[in-house]
Each structure stands twice: as structure tokens, then as C-alpha cells.
């Protein structure tokens, strides 16, 4: 990391920490969701951006994470922070298992298989033998986490929204640091090699099957943790929250943000959180048409995503 990048990161940190004190609680809640989406997009990016496997079903892993958190909190009385590792573990296993048969599928066929997963998830969640746990169509309402008493006593009067934001921020930083380490190391190089030329990668001694399944597992883990965090922020899970559209929005997020880019996840998250609202403000009659137009403008003007465009801009400035 160069000195300049480090400085930029520090500035970003300061802005992120100051944010909840500058904006309303509602905006703070929206930024919490941005962080949640950023984690999910980072997960999808590991799979699609770095490893080249297209998933149209990541909303399903997001749902599994959310339900794991909700069931643990509602039925077993687990504290909210403890649900994140649990959701991550459940999704890691689920993702790895789903990744094994998916190994035989390439490109579009894998996209279809994951699409099937995403499209069936809301119905599986309504399945009546699971109803005692999932609450059926009614879903589960969960309590909002309060800021810990230690902080209040120490004279830091955070409200529940601000506390949740900082909690999400801490998780996001941790997950991004992990992701960054993972992707620039041996594993990251192996994933990229498989994406670019899997036969050559095999020749170099990379275990394609293992790495591809692993990418699936890690990717699902990230998305699951995001799902759990999202459930805690929204305080409610229901099957209708996790329809196929969510999966597609995730894919939109990573493409707009920038494939195979760590920072791209953050730009993508900002995009999928705020652009639909802007579109709705512009036109009530056809918000998704406006959304579509904005999306086309983005991919046309920045074919490598926001992250790629910024990289090109910086490179141009340095070499006039």
C-alpha cells in the first residue's frame, strides 16, 4: 500500500466515523444498509469478479444468513453479535456444498443453477414443516440492539441507529481487511488464474475443484454475514424480502462497482442503495425504467465499473 493510498484510507475512515453525527438517524440507517450491501457485494465479487463464476442466486445465501440470525435471536435468545459468526459458518458450509455439484457447470449453466436456488428460496422459507422455525409467510420480527451500557456510562450517548452503524462499520472493516488479504495472496492469485485460463492453472498445480468450491463457500459466507447484519438492521425477516430480484440487484452492484475490485463493492453498494430511491423520486410511474437508464449510462461511461474508472482517472493524472 502506497503512502498516498494509506492517507486516502485514513480520510475515508474519518469520514465514515463522523457520518452518523452529521446526518439524521434515517440516513444513518441507510448508510448501515450500504455497509451491509458492501459486504454482500464483496462476497459475490470473490466468486464472480475474481473467480469468474456467475451467480444469480446470492440472494439465497443472504436469506440463509438473515434467517440464521433471526432464528438464533428469536428462538434461542442469542445476542445479536453472536449471530454473525454463526450465519457466516452456516453459509460457508451451504456455499461449499452447493459449490461441489456446481463445479461441473460452467458459465451460463452455473448461472442457471444458481438462479434456480435464488428463485426457490422464498418458497422454501414458506415450507410448512419449517414453519415452527421460520414463522412461515409471517416471518420473524427481531428486537433492535441497544448500545452497550458501557458506552453510555462512559459518556458516549449513541442512539440505537448510530450504534448499529458503528457495529456494521467494524464488521465491514474486518471483512474488507480479510478480503483484501485473501485476494492479493496465494489464494487470490489462484482464483484469478482459474478465471483467466483454468487449464493453465491446473497445469501450474492449482487444484481447480478445491479452489472453486472454496470460492463458493467464502463468497456465501460473506453474503451470509451481510444477511445477518441486514436482518438485525431491518429488524424483520420474511420470505418476500429475499426474492430473485435481490440476487440480480447484487449482480448489478458488482458490475457497476467494478468486477474484481475490493473498493468496487463499496461503490456498488452505494449504487444499489441510493439509485432506486433517486429513480423513484424522478418518476413514480416508471421508477425501474429510470433505474435502467441510469444503469445503462453507468456501464456505457464506465465499462470497468466505478472502481475501474477511478483507477483510469488516477493513472491519467499521474502521466500527463
Amino acid at each position, binding site marked *: 500500500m502506497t503512502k498516498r493510498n494509506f492517507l486516502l484510507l485514513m480520510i475515508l475512515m474519518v469520514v465514515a466515523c463522523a457520518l452518523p453525527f452529521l446526518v*439524521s*438517524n*434515517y*440516513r444513518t*440507517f*441507510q448508510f448501515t*444498509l450500504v455497509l451491509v450491501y458492501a459486504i454482500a457485494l464483496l462476497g459475490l465479487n470473490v466468486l464472480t469478479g475474481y473467480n469468474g463464476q456467475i451467480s444469480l442466486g446470492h440472494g439465497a445465501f443472504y436469506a440463509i444468513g438473515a434467517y440464521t440470525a433471526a432464528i438464533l435471536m428469536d428462538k434461542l435468545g442469542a445476542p445479536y453479535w453472536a449471530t454473525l459468526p454463526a450465519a457466516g459458518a452456516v453459509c460457508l458450509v451451504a456455499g461449499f456444498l452447493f459449490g461441489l455439484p456446481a463445479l461441473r457447470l460452467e458459465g451460463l449453466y452455473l448461472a442457471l443453477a444458481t438462479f434456480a436456488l435464488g428463485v426457490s428460496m422464498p*418458497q422454501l422459507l*414458506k*415450507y*410448512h414443516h419449517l414453519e415452527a422455525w421460520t414463522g*412461515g*409467510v*409471517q*416471518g420473524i*420480527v427481531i428486537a433492535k440492539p441497544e448500545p452497550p451500557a458501557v458506552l453510555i456510562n462512559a459518556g458516549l450517548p449513541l442512539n440505537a441507529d448510530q450504534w448499529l452503524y458503528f457495529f456494521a462499520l467494524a464488521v465491514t472493516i474486518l471483512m474488507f481487511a480479510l478480503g483484501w488479504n485473501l485476494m492479493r495472496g496465494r489464494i487470490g492469485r489462484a482464483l484469478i488464474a482459474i478465471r483467466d485460463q483454468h487449464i493453465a492453472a491446473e497445469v501450474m498445480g492449482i487444484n481447480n475443484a478445491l479452489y472453486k468450491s472454496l470460492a463458493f463457500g467464502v463468497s456465501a459466507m460473506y453474503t451470509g454475514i451481510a444477511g445477518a447484519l*441486514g436482518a438485525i438492521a*431491518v*429488524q*424483520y425477516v*420474511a420470505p*418476500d*424480502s429475499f*426474492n430473485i*430480484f435481490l440476487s440480480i440487484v447484487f449482480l448489478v452492484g458488482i458490475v457497476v462497482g467494478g468486477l474484481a475490485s475490493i473498493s468496487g463493492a463499496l461503490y456498488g453498494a452505494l449504487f444499489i442503495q441510493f439509485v432506486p430511491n433517486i429513480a*423513484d423520486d424522478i418518476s*413514480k*410511474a416508471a*421508477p*425501474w425504467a429510470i433505474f435502467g437508464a441510469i444503469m445503462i449510462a453507468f456501464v456505457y461511461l464506465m465499462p470497468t465499473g466505478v472502481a475501474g474508472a477511478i483507477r483510469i482517472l488516477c493513472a491519467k493524472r499521474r502521466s500527463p
Partner: protein
Amino acid sequence: MKRALVPLAAVLAAALVSPALAQKKYDPGASDTEIRIGNTNPYSGPASAYGTIAKSIAAYFKMVNDQGGIGGRKVNFISYDDSYSPPKTVEMVRKLVEQDNVLFVFQTLGTPSNTAIHKYMNMKKVPQMHVATGATKWNDPKNFPWTMGWQPNYQSEARAYAQHILKTKPDAKIGVLFQNDDYGKDYLKGFKDGLGDKAKAMIVAEVSYEVTDPTVDSQIVQLQASGANVFFNITTPKFAAQAIRKAYDIGWKPVQYLNNVSNSVGSVLTPAGLEKSVGIITSAYLKDATDRRWANDAAIARWREFMKKYYPDGDQADVFNVYGYTVAATLREVLTKCGDNLTRENVMKQAASMKGFRVETMLPGIAITTGSDDFAPIESVQLERFNGKQWELFGEVISSN
């Protein structure tokens, strides 16, 4: 010298103004000139057919504003799209409450969406007024004093059928088909409550189906085999049509009761076959504009006038537009009763003290009565029977109270 007079003038002015101020009480979202109301509706997504409800409500308040507003205050109806997705509802409702500073939210649509904001609204003490869902849980003033329903809830509708069966066929053997979710179970509970002690003896078969099932054919065969001579059909439109058709085709001829959710002639009875639907009993509480009975009705004529002027794109054959008009008129009455005391508490209080209020687009004999322990505005329905062409009202208005 002039400056010295300023504080004096200020004191005088305050003395003059304050008695008037004491009578006017406002919470966020209300002022001398405006009443701000929030709403979420699925304009896009799987339930976007309901989007027209909020559009007709917006049109209604446009008309109210053109007529001078309510007590001189313009109604500002802010509505956002939530695509029928609960997390989106939470986000949009928080925006309405915390950013747009609405006085309350009104007609938020959908059982899951309203469940998602139920706790939040009650914690914030912001009214969740006249929600657009028929679940029974909205009538719970003790635990959720800031939430109120509007339409007859599923349980009270089912009780009306139960009463009718007890009166007309006390020795009935009843078969029930229900959708296995909240909605189906809500109906079933109301039905059993209505039958009382006799429920166990009278209901000879209870069969359920999943929304994901392709057909309900085998369930209908099962019900016929049970020997039931009364059939209570608790299904959503697609399954309702299948059930009616199958029962007819296999020669099962019970007295059929069909829940109000599926009483559309166009999307249920026509695909099932109109001749196969003769004799089915259902219930209604609004005037359906397509019904020839109301062709010369003054209320429906006024409604058509309204649609033409304020919502020309709206479909006049869509009963949802009558619904939106009627529920908006109910809110207008609540706000008129609030007068200059536009606090959230008073809005709830006035909404909970309606005595026999009627909107002319409701069926004759149906009225809204609420109380501090009764947050269910419309609790009566009238039964109607299908004659092969259209629904025909019969009997008295049945109240579940």
C-alpha cells in the same frame, strides 16, 4: 425610544395570540397550512395491481385540496414505492417518519410489510393508520395502540359465514379448504369461533394446500369423499377458480361459501365457468362499480365524476379504486374531527371514536364504529349470491360484534 417599545409590543402580541395558540396543537407534520401524511405502496413488483389504491387516494386528496383542504389545511400525501418488499417498507417508512416528518402513515399495504413496521411505529408512537390488510392482528389496541386496520378482517368475515350456516343449515356437514398460511388460518379461526361449540361436530373435513401447489384437485376429491354438504372455500383467486371448477366437474354439489379475497367475477368465476359458479355465496362491503345495481346510484355517479376529473387513467371497472376513494374519505372524516388539535394522540383518539360513520360508496347498512378497545373500523359485511351473471345481495347486513 422606538426600540424600547419592541419588547412591550412583543409581550402584548404574545398575550393576544397565546389563547388562540393554546387551542391549536400540532405534532410534526401538521401546521396551520398543511397536514403531511405518509404511505408506502407496491407500484412495482409482484403486487403492483394494488398500486392503484394509493393512486386513487392521492387523487382523492387532490380533490379535497381543490375544495379548500381540511379545516383550511392542505393535505400533502407522500407515497413511496416499496415493491411489496418488507425491508424496503422499513426504509421508506423511516424516511417518511424521520425525514419527511409526516404526522402519521396511512394505508401502508400488505401483511408482511405492515408486520415489518409494526413495532417501529408503536415504539415511535406514530399512528399506523387504516392499514391495507385484512389480518386480524391489527386490532390489538392494548399491545399496539398506534396501529389500526380498516377493512373487515378475515376472522369477522368468516364469522359472518358461520352465522349464516348456523341459521340456514344447522345440521350442515362442512368441508373446508384453506391456504396454509397466515391468511388461511386467520379465516379458519374466525370460522370456528363463529360456529362455537358446534365447530367440532359440524366441520367434517379440513384440507389445506400450499401456495406452491399446482392444483387443488386432489383436495376437492378428498372433501367430496368426506360427505360434506357445505363447502367453505378459503383460497386465493387461482385456486378458487380451480376448486369451483373441479367440484362441479366431479358432481359434488355442496352449498359453497367463497372468501371475499376471491370474489372477483372477472378473475375467478369467469375462468371457473359462470354456469359452474351459480349459487356461490360470498360477502361484500363496498359498491362494485361494475355491478348493474349501482348503474343509477348517486354515490357511484359521484365516484365516476371524481375518477374522470382527478384520476382519468384509473380503471373504473377496478374495485380497488372504489376502495381507495372510500378509505380516503374515512381519513378525511378523522382529520375533520381532529379540528385544530392535530397531534398524533388526537388522531388515534378520533379514529377510535367513530360512531356509525358511513361513506356513500359502502354498501347500504354498513358503517364504521370504533372505540378505545375496538380498532376494527368495518366489521360488517353483507352476503351475496352468484346468479350466473352477477352477484346479488341478500339478507341483512351481518355484524360480527
